[in-house]
């Protein structure tokens, strides 16, 4: 389903991704962990082409982009629509209500009819537990609520893969649970997900696979129980010791 080959990303002198190869099967939940600066967020942003990789290729379903040659600007937006992105800082549109945030993509990008989109958006917001907050502006919502709107906004585009970039890192501790619950529900429905997070409990409970990244490489990957109880690589052990 997702096939990443030889992915490199360089910012001027700094090489953040030094050759990532990764295959993800449909319906799997992959959690990416690792110290800051390890390249995990950059990997996620490359999948959404918010960063243009320096070289390598990314394939999602039957579409692929090869960054070793220059990629045409026209090819990027349709490729982006295969993935939905959830940001650490939510990035909701502050001038739109929760409902309008969710409706924006389908209306502006997919040119769907307003009535149909409204219905779908209401369903999505109800699904993330915000059916009673449709007409609230982002500033009237808590962080956890905003992030759930962010998830609904991404889902409204019907992506094949959902990408979560530290979705709970900016939240007060008591609001983390409500966001993780929505994510778990999504996972149980069979959504393919790649999640960058520091929530090890979520990784244990919801992940099919855990990937440990460090220094721009995938150091180790495996089932969550294996990674968390018997990591093979020294760096993985060190990292897990530090966060526990």
């Amino acid at each position, binding site marked *: 389903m997702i096939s990443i080959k030889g992915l490199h990303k360089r910012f001027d002198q700094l090489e953040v991704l030094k050759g990532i190869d990764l295959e993800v099967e449909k319906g799997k939940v992959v959690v990416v962990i690792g110290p800051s600066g390890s390249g995990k967020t950059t990997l996620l942003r490359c999948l959404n082409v918010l960063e243009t990789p320096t070289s390598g290729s990314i394939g999602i379903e039957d579409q692929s982009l090869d960054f070793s040659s220059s990629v045409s600007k026209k090819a990027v*937006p349709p490729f*982006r629509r295969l993935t939905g992105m959830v940001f650490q800082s939510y*990035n909701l*549109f*502050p*001038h739109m209500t929760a409902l309008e945030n969710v409706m*924006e*993509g389908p209306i502006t990008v*997919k040119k769907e009819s307003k009535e149909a989109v409204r219905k779908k958006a209401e369903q999505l917001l109800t699904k993330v537990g915000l059916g009673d907050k449709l007409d609230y502006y982002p*500033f009237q919502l808590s962080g956890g609520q905003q992030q759930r709107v962010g998830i609904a906004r991404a889902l409204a585009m019907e992506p094949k893969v959902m990408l979560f970039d530290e979705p709970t890192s900016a939240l007060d501790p008591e609001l983390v649970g409500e966001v993780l619950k929505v994510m778990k529900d999504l996972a149980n429905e069979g959504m393919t997900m790649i999640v960058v997070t520091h929530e090890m409990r979520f990784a244990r409970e919801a992940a099919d696979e855990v990937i440990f990244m460090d220094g721009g490489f995938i150091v180790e990957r495996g089932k969550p129980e294996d990674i968390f109880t018997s990591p093979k690589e020294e760096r993985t052990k060190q990292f897990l010791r530090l966060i526990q």
Partner: protein
Amino acid sequence: MKMFLNSIIADPERVSRLIDIAQSSLQPLLKGAILYTIPLTLITFVCGLILAVLTALARISSVKPLQIIARIYVSAIRGTPLLVQLFIIFYGLPTIGVVIDPFPSAVIGFSLNVGAYASEIIRAAILSIPKGQWEAGYSIGMSYPQTLKRIILPQASRVSLPPLSNTFISLVKDTSLAAMILVTEMFRRAQEIAATNYEFLLLYLEVALIYWVICFILSIIQGRLEKRMDRFVS
């Protein structure tokens, strides 16, 4: 009014003459405002804003030649007096065969001026919108123009409303310079009336008062607009 004037001017005949002139000149002055000052302001502001958005986008684009053209334009307009610009268009261009009527000359001159000044306001406003807003737009599949139009400009317009209102109010008053290129707007009419009766102080005070009233009304509208646009921020 009459009593007030009587107290500072001893000659009662002069007082009634002044009041007569003030009253009879009010209609032509307002006519100048309605036929020229206000339309000139509105037309130029709209043209100038369009020019300003385009210039701002050119300045923040990654295309070097566009950036340079925008920079030169802004620098040239901001670095030369508005009156000189108007004279170049109206009195200068005819010497190379380009003859433009007074009103369109004024529209061109003021639009170029508003475009240059407002472009800096709009550029700053666009840059003040967090990068995450662009990314959020892109992440749901929007193109650059779609993100700009739907996400960035609505937020940037809120940020730029107070400084743009300033530009607008300045423009109302600056249109009096069009008198110098024969546009029969309000100030020119005041000059013409004063030239026949020599009551310069009266006429110029009267015209100043009308400008003040117009600008006062505008600042009330600005306040309302700001309140409306602030509905989505705490």
